[in-house]
């Protein structure tokens, strides 16, 4: 029997669970989203062409973080709401869980507005944002109301559809100057670490494991898949960074807002002159699970805190997300929101090891009291 089933509220019947293998897709798809389209520029501003090291450093930290999360969850945790309750008690714990839910919503919100901005700048300047937002949120509502298994399916599709886009890296490499990344490590370790922090926004997403953990069948078996997923995204980002570095000169890249989309611009096939149109359209599938899992995670946490059905929360959040998504526009506000969420996300990631520490301490104290 599943040990988690003993915890109240985490009693999930087996036909809602997913195989441990799918953790790979869920974490990957959550990590790869809107950040990869334009994160190069921010890295270059801090660490120049040494920023590829930053990506690897960030990837290394995330591996540690995965270990921390499994440690946290396996010690009879279940999910973040339960852990919060154990560590901080009902009220403070509930409040912190709600903050986590708001963070998940912000993430979904950020992905949506950034993607809509990309569509407006690159394809259709005259896009009616509210219609698009309406259709997109409708789709998200439809998927999320299908439950966690449907979300997993969407995550799988997203990864499979996103894969061929990787092949396009061939074109910029062909036109590239491979010597560009030399000499290595010209920037100070502090600058490289700062750039690693900068890449946080693009790496966000794996913390959702704290929410969907109870939905994994044989959760201890999923550990290696989570590590694989983080490794895969790190490599993906590493390759993307290297390709944009050889394609652009350093000063040029500092002025390119969306590095990865700009490298698609030279892809030309006889049947299509501008590949970025196809790329951006396909990217909808890549970001769709980000929005879905973000909203699902937020509503799931709310449901665990308050005794109300998840579907009510879902309807409420979808409606309340619609207006800000339809109204926010322009490079500057969106950039500010991106930076804000990047910073918040960075602290959320930092908070997880702290939580583990607190939990270990409270467990010890409790044990001593019992004796």
């Amino acid at each position, binding site marked *: 029997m599943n040990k988690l089933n003993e915890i109240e509220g985490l009693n999930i019947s087996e036909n809602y669970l997913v195989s441990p293998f799918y953790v790979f897709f869920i974490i990957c798809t959550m990590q790869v989203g809107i950040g990869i389209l334009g994160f190069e520029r921010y890295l270059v501003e801090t660490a120049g062409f040494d920023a590829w090291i930053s990506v690897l450093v960030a990837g290394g930290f995330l591996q540690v973080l995965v270990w921390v999360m499994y440690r946290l969850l396996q010690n009879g945790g279940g999910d973040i709401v339960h852990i919060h309750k154990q560590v901080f008690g009902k009220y403070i714990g509930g409040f912190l869980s709600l903050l986590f839910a708001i963070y998940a919503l912000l993430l979904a919100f950020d992905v949506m507005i950034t993607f809509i901005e990309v569509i407006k700048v690159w394809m259709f300047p005259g896009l009616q944002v509210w219609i698009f937002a309406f259709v997109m949120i409708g789709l998200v509502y439809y998927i999320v109301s299908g439950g966690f298994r449907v979300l997993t399916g969407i995550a799988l599709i997203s990864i499979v559809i996103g894969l061929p886009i990787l092949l396009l890296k061939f074109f910029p490499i062909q036109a590239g*100057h491979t*010597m*560009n990344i030399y000499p290595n490590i010209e920037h100070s370790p502090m600058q490289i670490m700062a750039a690693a922090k900068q890449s946080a926004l693009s790496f966000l997403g794996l913390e959702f494991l704290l929410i969907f953990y109870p939905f994994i069948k044989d959760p201890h078996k999923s550990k290696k898949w989570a590590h694989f997923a983080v490794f895969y995204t790190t490599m993906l980002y590493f390759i993307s960074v290297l390709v944009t570095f050889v394609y652009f*000169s*350093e000063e040029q890249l500092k002025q390119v807002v969306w590095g990865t989309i700009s490298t698609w*611009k030279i892809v030309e096939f006889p049947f299509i002159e501008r590949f970025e149109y196809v790329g951006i359209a396909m990217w909808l599938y890549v970001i769709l699970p980000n929005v879905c899992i973000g909203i699902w995670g937020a509503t799931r946490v709310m449901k665990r805190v308050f005794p109300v059905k998840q579907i009510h929360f879902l309807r409420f959040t979808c409606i309340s997300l619609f207006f800000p998504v339809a109204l926010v526009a322009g490079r500057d506000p969106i950039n500010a929101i991106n930076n804000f969420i990047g910073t918040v996300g960075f602290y959320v990631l930092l908070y997880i090891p702290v939580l583990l520490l607190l939990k270990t301490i409270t467990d010890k104290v409790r044990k001593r009291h019992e004796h």
Partner: protein
Amino acid sequence: MNIKWKFFVLLCILLLSAGCVPSKSVEENAIVQISGYDRGGDGGRIKGTVSIPQYGKSEKKTAASELYLTVDANSIKDVEKEIQKQSSKPISIGKLAVTLYSMELAEEGISDVIDVLSRDARLSRNMYLGVVDGQTQDLIENGYTQDETTSKHLQGLIENNIHHNFPSTSLHEFLYAYYAIGMDPYLPILAQKESFVEISGIGFFKKGKLVTTLSDAKVFTFKMMKENFTRGMQDLPFQEGTIMLDNIGSTVDYKLTGTNENPGLEINVKLKSEVNEMVGVEEKPSPQLAEEMEDAFVDYFKTNADEMIELFKKEGIDPLGLGHFAKTRTRHFDEKRWEDLYPDMDIQFDVDVEITEYGIFS
């Protein structure tokens, strides 16, 4: 939700998505494929000329016809606006393949034009830029062939030459060099002869301003110093006649020499080639003759290259990207100091010509 409802929702989504932006069909657009800019007269700062191919409604294939529009404007975007006034169809610039600037304009600086090109998401990065010796308006409005539009013709002209004697060029490469530290961009120079147009040389830029040019005869040497390539031809007077060298593989290698305080550079070229024309050369092909020819070519390339390097030093430009190369080989590269040292830098050029074949007739 039952299945009917789901179907209904899906249908709504499909219909709504299709209605998000206004659609335009190809025939109803004026597709600009080439644009040229001259210095303006009284009407504005610059004069823009575009050509728009006209597609007939009938099925039968007719000669390619084009519509030429010329306007005076104050900025590049203004040109688009002014042209819109003269056009019966909405202007679409997504297919723009060639952009030309007159020599006058290029000498004054085309930085603001470059900014527009790099900012506009609709434009291709594979677009060709060029400098026109003369007026771009005349060059564009002079039809060249019966079955090709001017834009296709010029695009083909530059593309074909990139595969032969001319070093590779495109909007992306121009921007790369324009922004890079220790590298300056160059563009082809087009000139109109009686009824055709030809690439007559190469123009070098410094911070968006055309500073010097090089004639067509020396382009081969420049390309040899700039990149590896496998085609291209170079002629040379030899004995009483002319010999023609056919490149079958040339590789170039830069090397940083000297100390950190006093850097120098070595450019080494290895050229494998065939000689396919020996007009007026009396001797039969033999190893000795090959050696003589090789020496003649080495001399020729060396003099040319040294002259070119002197020219670059004098003008303070670096189209070869030597500074860019040095930056990748030096820790804490000091751009200012490099620029100060550049005019007096010791730059050695060495070429090794190997002639392997003489064709199928001896």
